[in-house]
């Protein structure tokens, strides 16, 4: 498969995220989002009125609040009228839409943000409402249960074992000790089975959080950032919704998205994988052919902070931030949505050589 090569250079030039917390009762969604918006604007020196396109990702079902994204828009300065869009999924897909907008030449800068306020409800139950309404949703299979079915399929296939899953959990939380935004930094017990074979340690924390990035095209990116994280390719793919049709031990959609994004053309040094469950990291490493030379989730990943609807955008932001800092030259970022890695997005980010 020939990768798609964008004919306009677009980069992530700024990234910010909130501290992810179990609950944020004291903040409305816009109050939670505003500090990260202000932070990316501060990093670039841009004002809200300078932004060419704004795109956000969120879901009303999390907080049980209708049209919440329209109220969150107050935080970006939506008057006088701006060019704006919203995706009802993870903000990584909002970033994809903004990238396309910049590739068309209709804008030179874009603000992308997303947030998840899961604490008011029960996120395991809320996520059942995204399932097929005829065959699945009436049974209320929660997100942990579906991930556990995938984990057992991996165990049966000999692709992993429980100690290996525990090691993924431990490495992620250990890495998160250096991440001041993480909800679960540092070692913690692997715990009891939540839904066997997944223990609490194999599962992501439930929490509230927000993230924002700024994209810019060409020389505008170079003006705004000393080492832009250029998006060399990005693609997203989806699998059949029915779990019983899929091979749960594999992720062909991730592999195809990676091929189309050009991920296999040269080695990457960093991979930020959106794997809320330890078993999903096993699936993604196999699909992406990542070996031990690749630094996987140095941020701690979704096992350390998983604000639903923002955790995928954070993977793109964390990968870009490593390029900004000079810690990475070529990074892969992945985002997922839906049960058992149903939808997958892969981006390849690069820093220009010799510019640190």
């Amino acid at each position, binding site marked *: 498969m020939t990768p798609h090569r964008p004919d306009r250079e677009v980069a992530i030039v700024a990234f910010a995220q909130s501290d992810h917390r179990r609950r944020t009762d004291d903040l409305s969604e*816009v109050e939670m989002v505003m500090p990260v918006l202000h932070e990316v604007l501060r990093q670039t020196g841009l004002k809200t009125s300078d932004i060419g396109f704004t795109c956000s990702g969120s879901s009303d079902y999390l907080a049980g609040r209708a049209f919440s994204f329209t109220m969150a828009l107050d935080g970006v300065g939506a008057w006088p009228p701006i060019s704006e869009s919203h995706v009802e999924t993870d903000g990584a897909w909002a970033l994809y839409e903004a990238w396309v907008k910049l590739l068309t030449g209709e804008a030179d800068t874009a603000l992308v943000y997303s947030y998840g306020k899961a604490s008011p409800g029960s996120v395991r139950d809320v996520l059942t409402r995204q399932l097929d309404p005829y065959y699945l949703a009436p049974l209320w299979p929660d997100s942990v249960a579906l991930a556990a079915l995938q984990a057992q*399929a991996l165990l049966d296939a000999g692709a992993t074992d429980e100690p290996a899953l525990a090691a993924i959990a431990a490495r992620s939380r250990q890495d998160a000790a250096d991440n001041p935004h993480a909800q679960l930094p540092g070692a913690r017990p692997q715990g009891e089975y939540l839904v066997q074979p997944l223990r609490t340690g194999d599962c992501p924390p439930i929490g509230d959080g927000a993230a924002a990035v700024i994209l810019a095209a060409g020389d505008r990116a170079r003006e705004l950032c000393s080492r832009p994280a250029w998006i060399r390719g990005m693609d997203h793919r989806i699998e059949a919704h029915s779990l019983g049709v899929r091979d749960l031990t594999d992720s062909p959609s991730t592999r195809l998205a990676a091929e189309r994004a050009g991920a296999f053309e040269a080695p990457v040094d960093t991979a930020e994988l959106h794997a809320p469950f330890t078993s999903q990291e096993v699936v993604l490493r196999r699909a992406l052919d990542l070996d031990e030379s690749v630094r996987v989730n140095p941020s701690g990943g979704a096992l350390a902070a998983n604000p639903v609807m923002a955790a995928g955008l954070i993977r793109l932001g964390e990968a870009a931030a490593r390029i900004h800092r000079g810690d990475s030259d070529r990074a892969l970022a992945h985002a997922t949505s839906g049960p058992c890695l149903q939808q997958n997005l892969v981006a390849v980010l690069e820093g220009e050589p010799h510019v640190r």
Partner: protein
Amino acid sequence: MTAVTPPPETLRAPLVVEFPFTRSLGPVQSAFLTGLRERTVLGVRTGTGEVLVPPVEYDPATAAELRDLVEVGATGTVTTWAWNHEPRPGQPLATPFAWVLVRLDGADTALLHALDAPGPHAVRTGMRVRVRWADERAGAITDIACFEPHDSDPVAEPRPHDGLFADPVTGIVAPARLDYTYSPGGAQTRYLRALAERRTVGERCPSCSKVYVPPRGACPTCGVATTDQVEVGPRGTVTTYCIVNIKAKNLDIEVPYVYAHIALDGAGLALHGRIGGIPYDQVRMGLRVEPVWSDDGRYPDHYRPTGEPDADYDTYKELL
């Protein structure tokens, strides 16, 4: 009056979102769900001869239309499982059970459901199971109460089935309920707490100085937090209005009545309110009004004329 006060404890309240989604079924889903009512499990055959159970109307690989129904067994094999020791509301069994994907005999794909078993030691991939039918069946996936362990030899071949049943199910009602604990955040907590004291408090944008009522915590023009609290009103001016002639369900207000935008004195934009204490056809732009609090004093029930002369148009034209 401007004051910066420490944030009061945030308000919280239970919030229930309930919805009965009514969904129509296509020909394949109708046959499948009607079949369950009749204790018959149907699949659909693809162009390559694969049998999909549960059946879909379009091939997930080729998108080709699928209509070739077949009957498969009510016995099958577990392809993967997960032990659920704490069932959640709405799930098929209230006692601990295994989630299972089951490939029914004659099918090539697996169906998700629950398996009633004494414990995780009694479940394994490859084990044989059969459908336990619900006592009362209505044409829904829950007509399968669950699966149960059952030793039997696999039956290999699916049998042709015309998918026709008397009185077919053509739709389902999928009820859902989600429980939340709602918190309105800082700005709206401050607003609601002030209302309980019969005061209306807006918040000023530190950049453009506009005062928002009710405050939502951000200035949509400047994109910055509004933090300075400003008491506005209690009196205000009707900036525009409409006459409501249709009585809303469960609303104890006689029609016609007037619903208006009211710019409270000191506010940077108008809020909504009902106008009372004056015949509906005498309400006008510029009318000066004041709030009449609800009996429990938690919010203005409506606004009534103050008796002052009408406000000059120039004083409120920017707030229309």
